[in-house]
């Protein structure tokens, strides 16, 4: 009997400025004692290969050059020694300004040889912040120390912030502050100034124009303004300038608790944590100066700053190591039909769930028909919270309700897929399997997984003696 399983996960991050690939090995292990019901958890996430950091090949300012991206990924697979068939899970994340539908379609097409089995998702600013915060180790710190930790992922164009409270995301947001918002030519002239920087210089009375000589003092002043804006953001101060540079489509960074520690990731983080010798213009942008300004700012003197586990690779490590989770350890599936990919979720509210627990089928049938009209997928997952300590009769009524509705409405041969939060999936699944159906149907019922309406779910091959299945919940997807 094997008590441990490992799977290989790949993470690919295609951002505005850089493209990276990592491989990580996830270890699933039974952590419960000999006399207890098994409890399988992901006990280790080891990054086994890190690619070089490539500049993202672009056709124009926003469109990705799919063929060149494909070459980069193929080359990194070759260098790592892994074949596409070695990976069981993973994610391709398209971030920053590249996160648009056309790019997602290009990547999906070009990487299908590698990514046939992966998640391809375009991360909006919010999701990107969360992924980076997981990859940087900020989330783990907030769990280990049971405190609030803000992770600031400072990239080329934007700063994505996420606030974790004991592992839970309680706030997230994004502003147009980054290292490449002022670019300089190799002979020291200003080449590009972003709209957000223009707003900053205007409010400060600073004069900076394209073609000017790039003076250190002027650029440093911009860095100071950016650092001060970030500080005010974390202190929840109202600021008109700050409001004007909030990234479109991002959430308001609102929360009601003091921040206990902060952590930096993204390209600029290296310049913050490890100031190096050399010309400040060596990357052709203001990144180095922004790092210096942040290090000298109130962000460092007023907050406890923790060391990031990953800086520039936080997002790709987050994508590769933290997108896969694990189901509860007492679940039901009548046979191995996995992997299942991109299944849309129909989530029942607490009230709707209560109706099902009482055995009434009317509302559920109606909701299911509505979902089937919305989605072109033949399969769907019925998700609900469940109950912490349900009675036998409650589960029995629920099973009868679900089977009668799902069997009547799902196309022939499609499995009945149930995802619950509370530990009751084995009981519910077992009862569902005992009930007769018009068409022969598979029953897959898992718990300890939280999903929401509009999510998509992947379920991998069963692990650790078939006790659990790996699950990837995707909040955003195109394709």
């Amino acid at each position, binding site marked *: 009997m094997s008590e441990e399983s490992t799977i290989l996960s790949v993470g690919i991050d295609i951002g505005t400025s850089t493209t990276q690939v990592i491989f990580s090995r996830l270890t699933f292990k039974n952590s419960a004692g000999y*006399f207890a019901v098994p409890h399988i958890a992901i006990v280790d996430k080891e990054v086994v290969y890190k690619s070089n950091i490539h500049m993202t090949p672009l056709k124009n300012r926003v469109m990705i050059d799919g063929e060149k991206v494909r070459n980069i990924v193929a080359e990194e697979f070759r260098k790592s020694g892994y074949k596409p068939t070695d990976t069981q899970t993973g994610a391709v994340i398209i971030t920053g300004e590249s996160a648009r539908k056309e790019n997602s379609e290009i990547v999906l097409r070009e990487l299908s040889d590698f990514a046939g089995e992966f998640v391809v998702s375009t991360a909006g600013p919010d999701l990107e912040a969360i992924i980076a915060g997981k990859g940087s180790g900020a989330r783990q710190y907030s769990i280990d120390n*049971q405190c609030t930790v803000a992770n600031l992922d400072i990239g080329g164009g934007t700063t994505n912030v996420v606030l974790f409270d004991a592992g839970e995301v309680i706030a997230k947001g994004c502003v147009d502050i980054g290292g490449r918002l002022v670019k300089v030519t190799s002979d020291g002239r200003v080449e590009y100034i972003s709209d957000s920087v223009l707003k900053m210089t205007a409010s400060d009375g600073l004069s900076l124009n394209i073609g000017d000589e790039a003076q250190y003092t002027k650029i440093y002043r911009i860095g100071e303004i950016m650092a001060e804006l970030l500080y005010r953001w974390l202190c929840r101060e109202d600021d008109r300038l700050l409001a004007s540079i909030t990234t479109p489509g991002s959430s308001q960074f609102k929360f009601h608790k003091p921040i206990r520690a902060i952590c930096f990731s993204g390209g600029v983080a290296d310049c913050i944590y490890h100031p190096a010798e050399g010309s400040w213009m060596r990357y052709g942008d203001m990144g180095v100066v922004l790092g210096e300004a942040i290090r000298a700012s109130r962000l460092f003197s007023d907050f406890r700053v923790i060391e990031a586990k990953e800086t520039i690779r936080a997002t790709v490590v987050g994508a590769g190591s933290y997108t896969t989770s694990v189901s509860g350890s007492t679940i039901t599936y009548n046979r191995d039909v996995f992997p299942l990919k991109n299944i849309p979720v129909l989530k029942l509210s607490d009230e709707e769930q209560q109706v099902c627990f009482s055995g009434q089928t009317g509302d559920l049938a109606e909701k299911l028909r509505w979902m089937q009209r919305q989605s072109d997928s033949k399969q769907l997952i019925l998700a609900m919270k469940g109950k*912490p*300590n*349900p009675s036998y009769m409650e589960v029995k009524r629920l099973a009868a309700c679900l089977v009668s509705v799902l069997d009547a409405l799902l196309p022939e041969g499609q499995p009945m897929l149930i995802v619950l939060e509370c530990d*009751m999936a084995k009981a519910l699944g*077992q*009862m569902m399997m005992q009930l007769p159906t018009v068409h022969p149907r598979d029953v897959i019922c898992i718990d300890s997984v939280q999903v929401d309406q509009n999510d998509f779910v992947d379920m991998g091959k069963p692990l650790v003696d078939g006790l659990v299945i790996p699950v990837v919940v995707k909040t955003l997807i195109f394709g």
Partner: protein
Amino acid sequence: MLTQSQIDAIAEAVIQSMKPAPAPEEKRRMHRTTEIKKDRPVEASEVVPMDASFMMEKSPAERVSQKNGLADNEGLIDITSPEVKAIPLLDHVEDREGLERMIARTPARIGVGNCGPRLKTRTMLTLRADHAAARDAVFMDVSQELLDRMNLFTVATRCMDKTQFLTRPDLGRIFPPEGLETIKSKCVHDIDVQIYVSDGLSSTAVEANLENILPIIIEGLKAKGLKVGTPFFVKNGRVAAMDQISEALNATVTCVLLGERPGLATAESMSAYIAYKATVGMPEARRTVVSNIHSRGIPAVEAGAYIVDVIQKILEAKASGVELKK
């Protein structure tokens, strides 16, 4: 001589003291805020909703007091309830929310503070109340009402009463000849699986879990095409009583659902002990156990579904206990 204003003041004080006592609901709210929340430095607005939930959901103690018509208990709180235990007693907490999260993760009594070198009165009382619940679990009998509802007949071991059951573990493992006769005559023989229920050291555990766990196991096993024996109840039973039952009925697998020795954390914990071809005198290592079946461990109905799988695995492997794990 008293002045008129002094007389007025005295009269006012007397009138105040003669005002009728607050209504019960109001009293309870006052009770809670002053007794439990007194060291909680929060706004008043936060206190009210919590109190409201307390009033809607009556604690077990309150339900009992209502059933017995003990009006005196009106307004008393159940200090052993999870809601009350979740409130830290420690003074001057640096990170109150952090402490509450830690308390929620363990049944251990953390964040209870102290009074000099000793426990606070409330902690002491809670300990004694929990201990009393544990003693009740051991000494009470499983109600006949429940056994009737589940359609279980009762067979007693050689123990005459609870005292003998506690002092003579050996007698809790064997049946008197007439008891064994009852089992043989009332039950189906030569079965794949014999399931029965026993009080063990906690009747409370049987009361709390039996109705949710027994039917799902029996249904699950039958759905797998297995021949399941007649379930019954063994009074004053130890785990190893299953060995005599297994031999008497010629069961391939025997499974007992039994109340575990209660601790100060919970008195509702049940375990299932399962053995392949159990025989009297066999090593304990041949028993497979599924433990911690209670509302805050593995829910009874989920445990039942899991036990079905475990029994199937035992039948396939033709082994149980340590031998199954090999």
